[in-house]
């Protein structure tokens, strides 16, 4: 009787895992099956034409802009904030407040970020619906990710490194940029790559701050649409699942490459330390 119960539970465990994998295979499989027919050199590197049949280069360029700008701002701030929390701060009320704020930022849904971006960056700072407004909003979204991953990798730097360096008479700052940061670099890098994935996948916040103009952005102050927003709009407005899936393929391949790079880098980290 107990044996039977055990076997049923074991069966359920296998079934659940199977289901999880099956769902993934179905989604990725479907996107590829539906969209692969459209994928071509012209599709990826061709300019968009509103009448259909054009490429998605403007959306790719917009996506790259948003990644570049938001990481350019968020990376230094995030790393230095993590350094403060891990290396400089005395544990206490201030650090707890900062940690609480960072964690709360992680939990805020992207549509709320979108609302905030729409009223703060777009209206109050008068940036208008633009790539820069979206990028600044995304900066706040990825900031907690960068802070957390940097903190984690700072934690893995052995105490002895710090002690050894300080014992040689270096200052805290010298120890930081000559010893601690270099050994934490792989972890920090994979955190940055994860943030890129987050930016690529973001849609609601960008939708409300960058607008939906389907054209090559003239500058970072013009309104434009990223790959995800494009995928959403062609589905919602035109019901063009095939096109949405083709954009989806580009997105999934990008995410896959980023994931593999992050795994590769963090494996290197383990080899370097032990």
């Amino acid at each position, binding site marked *: 009787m107990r044996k039977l*119960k*055990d076997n049923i*539970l*074991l069966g359920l465990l*296998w079934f*659940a*895992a199977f*289901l*999880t*994998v099956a*769902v*993934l*295979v*179905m*989604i990725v499989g*479907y996107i590829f099956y539906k969209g692969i027919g459209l994928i071509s050199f012209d599709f990826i590197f061709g300019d968009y034409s509103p009448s259909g049949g054009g490429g998605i280069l403007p959306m790719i360029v917009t996506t790259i802009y948003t990644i570049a700008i938001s990481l350019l701002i968020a990376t230094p701030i995030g790393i*230095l*904030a993590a*350094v*403060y*929390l891990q290396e*400089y*701060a005395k544990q206490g009320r201030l650090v707890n407040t*900062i940690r609480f*704020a960072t964690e*709360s*930022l992680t*939990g*805020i*849904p*992207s*549509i*709320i*970020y*979108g*609302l*905030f971006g729409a*009223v703060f960056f777009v209206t109050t700072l008068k940036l208008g619906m633009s790539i820069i407004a979206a990028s600044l909003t995304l900066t706040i979204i990825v*900031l907690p990710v960068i802070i957390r991953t940097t903190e984690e990798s700072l934690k893995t730097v052995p105490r002895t490194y710090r002690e050894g360096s300080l014992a040689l008479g270096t*200052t805290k*700052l010298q120890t930081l940029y000559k010893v601690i940061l270099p050994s934490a670099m792989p972890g920090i890098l994979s955190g940055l790559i994860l943030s890129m994935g987050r930016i690529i996948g973001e*849609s*609601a916040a960008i*939708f*409300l701050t960058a607008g939906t103009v389907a054209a090559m952005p003239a500058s970072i102050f013009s309104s434009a649409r990223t790959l*995800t*927003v494009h*995928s*959403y709009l062609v*589905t*919602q407005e035109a019901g063009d*699942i095939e096109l*949405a*899936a083709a954009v*989806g393929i580009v*997105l*999934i391949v990008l*995410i*896959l490459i980023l*994931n593999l790079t992050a795994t590769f880098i963090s494996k290197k980290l383990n080899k370097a330390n032990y």
Partner: protein
Amino acid sequence: MSSIPIKKDAGEIGKANKRKYLLEKVSGRVFLFCALLSVVSLLLIIGFVFYKGSHPFIAEGYSFIDFLLGSDWVPSEDKFGILPMIVASIYATIGALIIGVPIGLFTAIFLAEIAPRSVAKIISPAVQLLAGIPSVLYGVFGLAIIVPFLQNNLGLIKGQSLIAVIIVLAIMMLPTVVTVAETAIRAVPKTYREGSLALGVSPIGTIFKVVVPAAKSGIMTAIVLGMGRAIGETMAVILVAGNSLIIPTSLTDSIRPLTTNIALEMGYAFGTHQEMLFATGIVLFSFILILNFVLARISSKGGN
């Protein structure tokens, strides 16, 4: 003999040291400033959303109770009631939890306790990829596969429904639940398992009676995080929800959760209408804050 040059050196070193210490002090301040930026961002977000959202109730005489409990949302007629959306959000989230949590939890147990290395090596990256897929694509998949499937098999006029939202959200919360719960289960000390096995409990019995209860707080965290993901999801939900403004009474009703209301109307809303969308954001925000509070309670308990 060489006392003079040494003195000179000492002077120079002293100067260099002074600069070093100054740099040290300044850099500490800069780091603190960067760390405080996340607090500032949070305050700005809360400030702006609450300021904009509370304006109609404070300055324009709208009743907040009518807003929360009103069931008519007709911006053109100055009617702003979001009860249907609150109910829709809650139903969709609970439904997604009912489907997603058992599957996610069992997958996590499987990965941590049962799976042979080779199998785990396939599933873990799969879960990671599932987490990375942009949410829009879940919506596209839902609209292209789940919605027609429901339409054909349940004989609905319109496949976009509460149940379609629930299924899509359940899939979307899977990676969160799996990864967080798996970490928690793996963190249970080996001695617990050995003790239980030594007492003659079967391996499966050990997992469900010893390991899972020991990982309880981590598993609760996984569920709350999954819930946060479900309640905040927007773009995927728009595509499969149908967006009707009714209080759902059955799984096949078309719904409009809080998030989609904001995304759908923000593009053209202005004045009071726009402020009411911010007020919708406040309600959504409050749900998330409650979840965060619960989460903090769980993790402080787990710490003890």
